[in-house]
Each structure stands twice: as C-alpha cells, then as structure tokens.
C-alpha cells in the first residue's frame, strides 16, 4: 500500500512537463482540441496536488495554453499559490503566469497585496525583480495605492537592477493612482541623475511618457533634460529626450531656439540613423513652432530636407519610409522646400512597397500647385490603372479627390478637366468610393456655375452609358455616381442640348435594378427634364407633337416605378404619373402648361455648409433648458401623477396615454375599413390601380420598340467613355499656358488689369505668388457654402474623456504641501528634513564658499578693481550666492534690462525656466560662445570685457560657470523643500520666502507647518502631525519626526501609547495590546527621520489625548544607556478632517439639503489679509475653498467618517465671522473652537 503511494508520487514526477505538452500538441495536429482538453483535465488534477512543484508545472503548462487562446482564469487562485512559493523557480513561474492572464477584474488580485509586498522587500533582488515585473502587468488601482510606498522605497534601493525596475513601474502606478504622482515626483527627478545609466534611462523613459500626455507640466524640467542631452552618450536616452523636446517645443518657442544648435550638431556628428532621424524630427517640430524670425531658419530646413533626402534615397526600405514620414511633417509648414524634391517622391510612387507608396501619396497632397496639379494627377491616374488590389486603388482614388478638392479647389485651374477626371474615375471597377466621386460631381456642379453646361453634358453621357457602370455586379459602389448624374441633369436641365435623349435614358427599364434611392432621384429628375422639354417645345406648333410624345413616354414608363418596392420611388412615381396624365389632358386641349410645370421646380438650391445646422444661433430670449410648463411638484408621488390623467403636464406623458388607444382602434376597425376602401376603389374610375394586371395593359398598349428616341439616339455624337479625355486637357492646358505666356510678353501693360480681375473673380484664392500667372481657363466662381446668420466660428474638438492620462495632468512645479508630502512616504526621508532655520542658513552660507575660488570668480575680482560699476554687480552676485536661489528673482529685472531678453516672471518655477531660456544664448561657435555663456549674470559690462580676455581662458571658465549655476539651481530646490518644514522663520528667512516661496500673485504667505512639538529632552526631539487616513474611514495617521539632538547614536527606539477605549494604536498581528512599536530606523547624531503610526478611532466627535512613551538606547563609544521620553498625543477634531475638494454646485446642493446643523463664530481683531486667513484655515484645518468672492469665501471639508462640514467665512474691519454647518454638531463645535485657537495664537 505504502509502495503504491510512493509509486503514485513518482508517477506525478513523470507527469507531462511543458515540453511534453508542446510536443504532444505538435503530434496531435489533427485532433488538437481534443488533446488539449485531456491535457487540461490532467492539469486540473495536478493543481489539486499539494506538491508545489507539481502545481508550478501545471501553471507552467497553463501559461502555454493561454497563449494558444485558452481561457485559464479558472486557475487564478492556483497561480497565486505558485506566486507565493518561497522558491525563486516557482515564484518566477507564478508571476509570469499572473502577468499573462491577470487583469483588473481578476478578483484574486486582492489576495496578492501582502505577498507582493513581502516579495518587494525580499532580501533576494531577483524575488523583488520578478515581483516588480509581474506587478507591472497587472497593477490595479488598489494595488497601486497600497504598494506605492513600497515601490517608492525601492527607487532608492542599493541595487541598480531593482532601482530601474522600480522607477519604470512608477509610471504604471501613476496611471492607476494619480495621487501618488506629486509626492513621488521629486524622487523620480533625482533618478534622472542616477549614476547607473540603466536607472537614468528608466527615469527618462517614465518622465517622457508622462510628459507626452501633459507636456506643459514638465516644461520646468527642460534645463535638466537639456543638460542630459548634451552629456549623455546613451543613444536610447538621447532619442527619448529628443522626442520629449519635440513635444515641449510647441509650448515654448524659446526652448526651440536653444535646441536648434545642439541638435544640428548631433545631426552632423552622429552615425546612428535612429538618432539622426529623431533629431531631424525634433528640429522639424522646432521649426514648426517657431513661426518666424530665425536667422538660420532656412539653413536648418535645408539641412533637414537634405538629410531626409539621403534617407529616402537609401536602399534600406525602412529609412526610405521614415524619410517620407518626416518629410510630410515639413510639408505642412514649408511646402516649398519639399516641392523641390518632387522627382524623388514621384519615384517613390513606383516603389514595390505599399507602405512607401502610401507615404509618398500623403506627400503629394501637399506638393501640388496650380502648375503641377494636372501632371501629378495624370501620373496618379496611370497608377490607378496599374494598381492591383482594390485597397491601394481606393487609396489612390481618395487621394486624387483629396488633392484636387483641397482648400476649396484652390489648385484647379480648369474644371472641365476635373470633371473629366471624375468621369474617368467612374470606370474603376469594384471601388467603394462611388459616393465620394458622386459628391464631388455634385459639389463642383453646384458651386462652379461656369462649368454646369459642361458637367451636364458629361453627366448625360454617363446616364446614357449607365449600363457600363452598373455592369455585371449589382452591389457595385460606383453606381452611386448615377445619383449625382441624374440630379445634375435634372437640376441644370436648361443646359442640356438633347433633354429628350437624357429623359429616355433615365426611364429605361434597366433603371429599375438600381438601388432605391437612386431610382427615386431618377424619377424626380425625369419630371424636371419633362418640364424643360415642355418649355422648349411649346409655342412652336410643329413641336407640340414632341411635347405630347414626351408626355406619352412618361406615362408609358413611369408605371414601372410605381410598382417599385421602394416606398420613396413608388410615391414619387405615382405622384408624377398623375401629374403627367393631367398635363397630357391639357395638352390635348392645346392649353399651354409649360410655365406652370416649370414653376414646380423653380428656384435655385445653394450649397449649405455641413455644420450649418449646428451653428444656427439660439435666438435671444429662448432658453431651451427652461420648463415650458411648471414641473410637477416634488411632493406628489409618481403614481399619483400618472393616475391623474387630466393633470398630465408634459406632452410626452399625454402621448403615452393616447397612443395605445389609437392603435387599439386601428386594429379593431382595420379589416373593416380595408373592405370599405377596396369597394370604393373598385367603383372609382379615376383611381389608378397599381396592380399587375393594369400594368400589363399599358405595356401591351405601347410597347418598347415604338419609342422614337431610338433613332435620335443614333444621331448623338456619342462619346465613348472608355477614352481618356483628361489627357486632352493636359495638352490643351499646356498650349493655353504657352499662349498666355506669349500674350503676356506682348501685352505687359494689360497684365496688371487682368490680375486684378482675376483676384475679384476667385474667392479664397491664396496660391503662392509664383503661380499667379496661371490664369484659370474658365470664369470660375466658386459659390461658398451657406451658413446661418450669426453663426459662431467656434469649432469644439472634444478629447477622449476616458483617457487615463487626463488624471495625470497634475501641476508638478507647485511645491509639495506638508500633507501631500507625507501621504505615501513611509520611511526614510532625506536627511535635511528637519533642521532649525539657523542651520539652514549656515548650510547655505557654506556651500558657495568653494565656488568663489574658480578662475572665473578670480578674474572677476580683478575686474572689480577696475570698474566700479562692475563691483556693484559683483556684490549683487555675491549676495545672490549667499541667499541661494531666493535672490535670483530680484536680480532678474535688472538683468533683463541689460541683456534685453524680457521674460515676464510670474511664478518662481516658470522663471527658473525663463532664466534658463533667456540665459546663455546658444553659441554659434565655441570660441565666441564663451562670452555670452559665461556672463549672463554679470551682464553686459562683463560681456564687453570678455572678448578681450584670452579665448582659452574664457573657454575654461564656461563649464565652471554652468556647473555652478546648475549647482545653484539644485540648491535652490533643496532649500524650497526645506522651507516647508520650518516652524518659524527668523526675519531673514521670512524675507527669502517672500521672494520666492509662493505661487499666488497676492502678498505671499508666511510659511506654515502643522508639525507640533510632541516632546523633547536632551537626546531627542519629537514633532508630529496627525491626519485622517484617506483610505480607511476609522483611521488616523500620526507622522512623527524624530530628531537626534545629541552627539551619540540613538537606536532601538520603541514607540508605545496607552490605548483608550476610543483610540487604539494599530499594532502588527500577534502583538499584545500593550506592546510598543519598534521605530524602523536608527538615528545617527544630528539626523532626523520620520515614522508613521496608525491609530484606529471610533468616535471622532470629541478631541482626546493619549499618553505614550518612547524608549530608546543612546549609544556612545564606550557605553550605552536606556532612556525614555513621555509624551501626550493630542488628537484634535481637526485631525479627523480630510481636505476634500468640492464643486460649488455640489456644495450648494449640500447646503440646500437641510441636513446640516448650523453654528457660528466671530473672531475679533484679526489683522491678516483675507487670503492668509483662508490659507491658514485650509492648511491647519484641512479645508478647501469652494468659492471665493471678494471678502467672502465658502469652504468645505469632510471627516474621515464622512461628515460634511461647510464654512462661510466673511471678513470686515478686522472682524471675521464664520458660519458653519455640519451634520454632526459636536464635531462642528470642537472644530470651531480649534479654529478660534489657531487664530488666537497668531
């Protein structure tokens, strides 16, 4: 028995592994599905085993089956099991399977959070790596939120392998959990300068991806990227950065100017085609963004076009393709420079590669001019004939029409030619674009009056030869053309030479095989033709016979249409048939009817713009949203409303009741009525019966062969549509142009007048000047499309509202607020998180010291002796150095005066960029470069001196200077970070913040912090901030910053709090209720760090205090002592509030709901600006401003348990009154007390 079990497990071991499965599938080609289903059964068995190896094997096979298209989601739980194996081998398989088949709605993903967290913090880097890779494929909003902290920590991992993966996955996290973007961004930015190229590349990758969607938020990173671009040698990184710049330049033309130089250098120097191509692409983007005014503008374009030509001429099809692609971008703005390469592009049309042909076609679109249009289209027509495969031919067809019709037929000089091109295109078999040709025919015929006669003649021929078009296939798309032809012939029938012939052609029995809507047009236009014929022949006695014959023809043929199954055709036909019969009667009495019949179709139809309907302005005083009748009162229940039929207010409701009644009546009496009607009809001699029997009578009566038209048909000079007529026009056109030229030479004086005339004739003609001497062959007048009066020119293009990147449109330049910064950061922060302002100043003062020793600086000192003016400036610079970034602002205005590059600075960040952009105009050669590049801050005085100094020296100083300026920028940023943590500022520091700290234009705010002192002794200082937990309604997060104040090492810190009934410290599972929490770090001397503790709270109405103790070991060189520090945690009611944005409409709804209880508060003697006051309430009490009007503002906040709290703050003469409303009066009272306290303190 035991042996059997052993044998069984050995059997397991010999189960199919993946390779066997693969081989098996291959060997069972004929019954693959059956084989796989047995395999799946086996897998199911294997998954039931306890052995993880067996399970992993099964999961492995499932991964393969998933690839073949089998749904394996049923095994999701087993995959999780394999993921959580401790062995890397299995874990890797598990994560792979998960990444292949998990997605957002896989419910077991919820179970993985802790496992993933464990793997992320695994000591084995490959466990972490595998988890990150897997997570990148199935991250959900929940996972992103829960793991954001862990991943952020990994971004600073010691191993670059982990760092780069963590950086990359952040992009996915941002997408799923946009709130994490702002807190994580500073660290992401740091990674741009990571020593490991892989990590750097990953960071570039992520930021580029982010910036592509919301470029304007990343403009401020341009200097950093610029530096990277000039320093990096990794082509992959370079490509990404250059692509990013391509996205940024449209937003900031100055950036483009700065870029051109280095990019051109790259273009010249690089040997990598991929890099070259991207450089060219970005230069093109720059050139597009620079509307005008670059001196070497055309040189750059020439360079690009030249390089692209090399690409296109390359034998590598890929380069050819990309060259054409880039060329089409240049084309939009600089068509001239592309047009010179027409030969090359036309050559590409003959390429065997369809992608390349299509690209070349795109280019042609922009290359046409009046001169070459005919030639190009002729070439395309040749291709149409040659093309095999309908897709490419259809593409050609649409392109031809696009090219010709672009910008209101701008390039067409001869519409006869165009019409004949269209007619030629109708010969295409099997095209889907019949309707396109048809609409072009209609458009041209309607809008170009001069062409109508010609168009009508052509259309008549088309109608006559309709059998060639409809040909064999019924569903041939080309028969749409007949729709246009019939309509044009009918509408403009006065131009028809032989209306009778056309009329006959339109009434042939074969027409009945056309689609219904075309038949309908045929019938209607036959009537129009009829009217024309009548008018033409009446009055002349000899011709009255012709008129009568025409009537007879109609009467003979129309019944065919009366029979039609298409309702529209039937209706029109029977209507017109009756009419004609009546007319015939009158004719027989020799009454003149032509006048009246023509009146039926009088009036001209004008083209209407496609958007016209939408643009009809709403008349003044008409409000479509207003109730027409008063709405039913809310108290009345719906049932009641329905019962009281008489009261029904809306027309809709009315109809709901009445409709069924009518149908009922109908059904009851239908049969009866039908009987009655039939009887009536039978007795009525004037009723035309559409029954087959009556039809027969007509046909017997006349017979097709008696139609006189047949003879006339022969006399018509028949144009065979198979002959390409458009070629004739090309020749004619050439001749005409020659003649024109000759004429002009003779009569130069006349030219001017002619031009003027032409200008008047052609509306919207904005062709290039060089083409002006091509006069159109006809008097062409393009009727513009009609628009309603007062139509608004706006065109609202709507973006995809589901784009996940919309959520990532977050301003990253705004300094992080304290609350934000904390949210996802769980542990280690940068060291300088908390330092007293004094220390800050020291640091600031110390840093610039070594810089002064650079050669540059020394030289300046010498110069200073020489010139007093310069001395002053240098002093300024010194000051600037001392104050760090802060003082750059005030210097700038002066500087701009001198350098004359005026960037208006609105926000500090923007001006950082402004500074960078206006600074250091890009040198045209390295020697001359030194001067401007090195002197921007010392300004013009220096610049004048610099050229005198030795070029070499200048060269040397340049990098120094740039280095120092970037250094400074870094410092500046650091300082900004620090500032947010200051509790109080000394006066000097306060000044600084006034200079650069705020975003608002109003008087800036003093720095604020919510961190309150918790406890302090000679070893350690604790400050804390308490915030509601966004994710969990019953939790608050206490962030404590520990600062080591002594000279010794502090370790083994343990944080403990005496729980109350209401508030409990959350301890890990398994810990007792009185155990302390170990603080997860140690503190070297002078260092501070932050830890976060979570408390669960039940009742949030009352503030409360918790007693706690921190125990720690102070370790000196020789001894270590246990120390302890008691503290009291004060949970204010404010700390239960969460800053929640609220829209004003939702806000007013909330107030109207009447659920809220009110309370108010008056503060006397507050002498702060109103916006300071609001900012304080927002910052300290977690409110957000809903709306602010002058000195009155409404604010909103929400408690962690979902209580709404609304404030109305008003101020007048140092008195602030706050009216507050909340659904929990106790909470409200306490919060108001706390607000009062805040303002009494300041």
């Amino acid at each position: 028995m035991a042996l059997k079990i052993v044998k069984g497990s050995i059997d397991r071991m010999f189960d199919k592994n993946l390779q066997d499965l693969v081989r098996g599938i291959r060997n069972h080609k004929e019954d693959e599905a059956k084989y796989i289903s047995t395999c799946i059964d086996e897998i199911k068995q294997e998954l039931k085993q306890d052995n993880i190896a067996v399970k992993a094997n099964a999961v492995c096979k499932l991964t393969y089956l998933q690839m073949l298209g089998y749904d394996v989601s049923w095994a999701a739980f087993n995959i999780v099991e394999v993921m959580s194996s401790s062995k890397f081998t299995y874990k890797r398989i598990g994560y792979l399977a998960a990444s292949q088949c998990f997605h957002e709605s896989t419910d077991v993903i919820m179970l993985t959070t802790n496992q993933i967290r464990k793997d992320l913090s695994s000591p084995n880097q490959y466990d972490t790596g595998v988890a990150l890779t897997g997570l990148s494929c199935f991250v959900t909003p929940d996972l992103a939120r829960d793991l954001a902290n862990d991943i952020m920590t990994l971004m600073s991992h010691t191993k670059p392998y982990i760092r780069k993966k963590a950086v990359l996955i952040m992009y996915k996290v941002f997408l799923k959990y946009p709130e994490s973007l702002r807190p994580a961004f500073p660290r992401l930015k740091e990674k741009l300068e990571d020593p490991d190229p892989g990590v750097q590349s990953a960071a570039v990758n992520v930021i580029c991806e982010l910036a592509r969607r919301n470029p304007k938020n990343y403009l401020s990173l341009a200097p950093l990227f610029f530096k990277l671009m000039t320093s990096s040698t990794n082509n992959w990184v370079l490509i990404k950065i250059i692509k990013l710049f391509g996205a940024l330049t449209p937003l900031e033309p100055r950036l483009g100017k700065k870029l051109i130089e280095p990019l051109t250098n790259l273009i010249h120097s690089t040997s990598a085609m991929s890099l070259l191509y991207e450089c060219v692409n970005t230069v093109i983007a720059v050139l597009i963004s620079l509307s005008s005014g670059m001196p070497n503008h055309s040189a750059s374009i020439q360079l690009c076009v030249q390089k692209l030509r090399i690409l296109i001429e390359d034998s590598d099809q890929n380069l050819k393709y990309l060259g054409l692609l880039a060329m089409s971008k240049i084309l939009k703005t600089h068509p001239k420079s592309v047009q010179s390469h027409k030969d090359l592009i036309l050559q590409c049309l003959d390429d065997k590669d369809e992608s390349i042909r299509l690209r070349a076609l795109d280019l042609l679109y922009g290359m046409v001019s009046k001169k070459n249009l005919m030639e190009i289209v002729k070439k395309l027509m040749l291709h149409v004939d040659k093309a095999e495969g309908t897709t490419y031919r259809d593409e050609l067809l649409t392109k031809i029409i696009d090219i010709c019709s672009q910008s209101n037929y701008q390039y067409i000089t001869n519409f006869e030619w165009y019409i004949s091109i269209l007619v030629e295109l109708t010969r295409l078999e099997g095209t889907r674009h019949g309707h396109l040709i048809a609409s072009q025919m209609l458009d041209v015929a309607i809008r170009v009056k001069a062409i109508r006669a010609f168009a009508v003649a052509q259309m008549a021929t088309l109608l006559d030869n309709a059998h060639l078009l409809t040909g064999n296939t019924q569903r041939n798309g080309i028969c749409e053309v007949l729709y246009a032809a019939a309509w044009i012939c009918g509408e403009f029938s006065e131009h028809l030479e032989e209306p009778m012939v056309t009329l006959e052609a339109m009434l042939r029995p074969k027409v009945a095989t056309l689609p219904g809507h075309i038949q309908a047009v045929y019938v209607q236009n036959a009537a129009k033709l009829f009217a024309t014929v009548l008018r033409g022949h009446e009055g002349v006695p000899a011709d009255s016979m012709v008129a009568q014959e025409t009537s007879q023809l109609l009467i003979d043929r129309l019944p065919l249409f009366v029979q039609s199954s298409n309702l529209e055709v039937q209706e029109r036909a029977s209507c017109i048939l009756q009419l004609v019969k009546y007319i015939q009667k009158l004719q027989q009495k020799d009454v003149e009817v032509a006048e009246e019949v023509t009146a039926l179709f009088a009036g001209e139809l004008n083209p209407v713009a496609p958007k016209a309907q939408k643009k009809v302005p709403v008349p003044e005083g008409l409000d479509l949203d207003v109730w027409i009748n008063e709405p039913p009162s809310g108290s009345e229940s719906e049932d009641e409303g329905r019962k009281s039929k008489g009261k029904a207010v809306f027309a809709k409701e009315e109809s709901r009741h009445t409709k069924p009644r009518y149908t009922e009546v109908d059904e009851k009496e239908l049969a009866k009525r039908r009987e009655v009607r039939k009887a009536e009809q039978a007795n009525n001699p004037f009723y035309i019966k559409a029954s087959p029997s009556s039809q027969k009578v007509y046909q017997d009566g006349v017979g097709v062969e008696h139609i006189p038209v047949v003879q006339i048909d022969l006399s018509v000079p028949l144009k065979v549509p198979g002959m390409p007529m458009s070629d004739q026009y090309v020749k004619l056109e050439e001749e005409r142009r020659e003649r024109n030229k000759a004429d002009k030479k003779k009569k130069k004086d006349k030219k001017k007048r002619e031009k003027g005339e032409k200008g008047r004739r052609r509306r919207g003609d904005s062709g290039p000047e060089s083409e002006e001497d091509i006069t159109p062959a006809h008097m062409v007048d393009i009727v513009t499309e009609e628009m309603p009066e007062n139509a608004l020119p706006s065109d609202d293009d709507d973006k995809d509202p589901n784009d996940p990147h919309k959520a990532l449109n977050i301003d990253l330049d705004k300094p992080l607020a304290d609350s934000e910064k904390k949210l996802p950061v769980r542990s280690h922060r940068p060291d300088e998180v908390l330092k007293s302002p004094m220390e800050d100043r020291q640091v600031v003062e110390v840093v610039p010291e070594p810089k002064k020793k650079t050669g540059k600086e020394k030289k300046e000192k010498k110069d200073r002796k020489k010139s007093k003016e310069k001395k002053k400036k240098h002093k300024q610079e010194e000051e600037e150095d001392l104050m760090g970034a802060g003082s750059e602002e005030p210097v700038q205005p002066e500087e701009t005066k001198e350098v004359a590059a005026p960037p208006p600075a609105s926000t500090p960040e923007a001006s950082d960029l402004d500074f960078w952009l206006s600074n250091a105009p890009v040198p045209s050669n390295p020697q001359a470069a030194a001067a401007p590049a090195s002197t921007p801050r010392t300004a013009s005085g220096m610049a004048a001196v610099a050229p005198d100094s030795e070029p070499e020296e200048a060269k040397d100083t340049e990098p120094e200077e740039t280095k120092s300026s970037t250094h400074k920028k870094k410092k500046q940023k650091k300082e900004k970070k620090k500032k947010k943590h200051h509790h109080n500022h000394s006066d000097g520091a306060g000044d600084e913040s006034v200079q650069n700290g705020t975003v608002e234009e109003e008087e800036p705010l003093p720095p604020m912090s919510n961190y309150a002192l918790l406890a302090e002794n000679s070893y350690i200082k604790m400050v804390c901030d308490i915030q509601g937990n966004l994710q969990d309604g019953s939790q608050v997060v206490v962030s404590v910053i520990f600062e080591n104040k002594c000279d010794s090492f502090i370790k083994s810190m343990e944080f403990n709090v005496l729980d109350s009934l209401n508030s409990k410290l959350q301890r890990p599972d398994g810990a007792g209720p009185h155990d302390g929490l170990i603080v997860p770090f140690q503190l070297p001397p002078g260092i501070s760090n932050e830890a976060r503790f979570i408390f669960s709270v039940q009742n949030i109405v009352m503030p409360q205090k918790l007693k706690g103790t921190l125990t720690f070991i102070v370790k000196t060189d020789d001894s270590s002592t246990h120390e302890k520090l008691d503290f009291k945690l004060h949970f204010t009611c404010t700390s239960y509030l969460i800053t929640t944005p609220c829209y004003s409409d939702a806000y007013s709804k909330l107030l109207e709901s009447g659920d809220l209880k009110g309370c108010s508060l008056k503060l006397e003697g507050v002498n702060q600006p109103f916006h300071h006051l609001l900012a304080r309430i927002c910052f300290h009490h977690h409110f957000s401003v809903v709306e602010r009007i002058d000195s009155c503002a409404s604010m909103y906040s929400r408690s962690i348990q979902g209580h709404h709290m609304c404030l109305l703050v008003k101020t007048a003469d140092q008195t602030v009154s706050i009216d507050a409303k909340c659904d929990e009066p106790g909470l409200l009272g306490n919060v108001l007390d706390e607000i009062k306290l805040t303002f009494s303190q300041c």
Partner: protein
Amino acid sequence: MIKAILIFNNHGKPRLIRFYEYFAEDVQQQIIRETFHLVSKRDDNVCNFLEGGSLIGGSDYKLIYRHYATLYFVFCVDSSESELGILDLIQVCYITLLYTYHLQVCYITLLYTYPLQVHFILQEVVMGGMVLETNMNEIVGQVELQNRMEKSEGGFSAAPARAVSAVKNINLPEMPRNINIGDINIKVPSLSPF
C-alpha cells in the same frame, strides 16, 4: 509604450505573446491572426513598419516587425517609441536568445523547447510596456544569474523528470541538421552599442 509583443511562425502559430494591456483571450487570438495576415503578405525586402491593425491600437500605433527565417517578431508600439530603436531592440532580443542558449539550438526548436525562458529574457528587456534595458551584456548577465539561481534550487522540475525528458528529447529527425545561421543577413543600422 509598447502595447504588445508577438512572436509567431510562418504559419501564424503563436510562439510567444505578450500583451501589456488587457485583451480577452479570443481578442488576443484575433489580433494575432490579423497581425499575421498583415505581416505575412509582405515581402522580405519591404520596410518593417506597418500602420493600422484595426484591433490593436489605432492611428497612433505602428507594427514594427522583423522576420527571421521561420519566425516573425512583431512589436506593436505607439508614437513615443523610435521606430529604428525598436528594430534594434528586436535584434537585441533575438541575439540574446541565441547567445543565451549558445547557438546550440536552431531558432525553430528554440521556442519549442524553452517557451518560458524566452519570456524570462523578454522580461529583462521590456517591462510593463516600457523598455527596461537595451544593453545586451546586462540582459544576458541578469538572465544567466537568474537561471543559475534556479539551478541552485534544483531546477524547475525534479531531476528524474529532467532525465526522462532529456531522453525524450533525443528526437533525431527533429534535431537541426544545419546549425549555420549565417543566412541571417541582419543589417544593424549603425547604432552605436547600447
């Protein structure tokens, strides 16, 4: 962003698929079929870019592919990726594959015998749709380290199973007769080594 990586043979049979965006299994298969249909009718001497698969992507997306003997490597990427860069990346993937397995296995059987391993290599190159590493040495190094780790844990399936499958593996007619891959005339656009 890379939206999907597909490897299939000359008959359209998938050898490896990797979607960085969720598609249901049947849609995945449809995409493979459509992509195969688009790619397979192209000559080898035309360009390696294709616009417009209707199922995947849209106007912003391109298919970039390479054809090696019996296999198509297709990447579906959006406009943020450099076309030539991706072509090189495919090359890197492919060479890594061959290199890691010491060119002992002809590529036809490669994807038969090591379907998962190919995934693992790919994971070191592309992660979540973004290019992770382009340096071949780095990729090979990481893959080998991980494989070594797997070995130290006793390999994927226990030793006996390994032995058995090794025996099964000796399937003489299927062994490639000619392991010469000189016919891959891959022109690496002179991109300096990543």
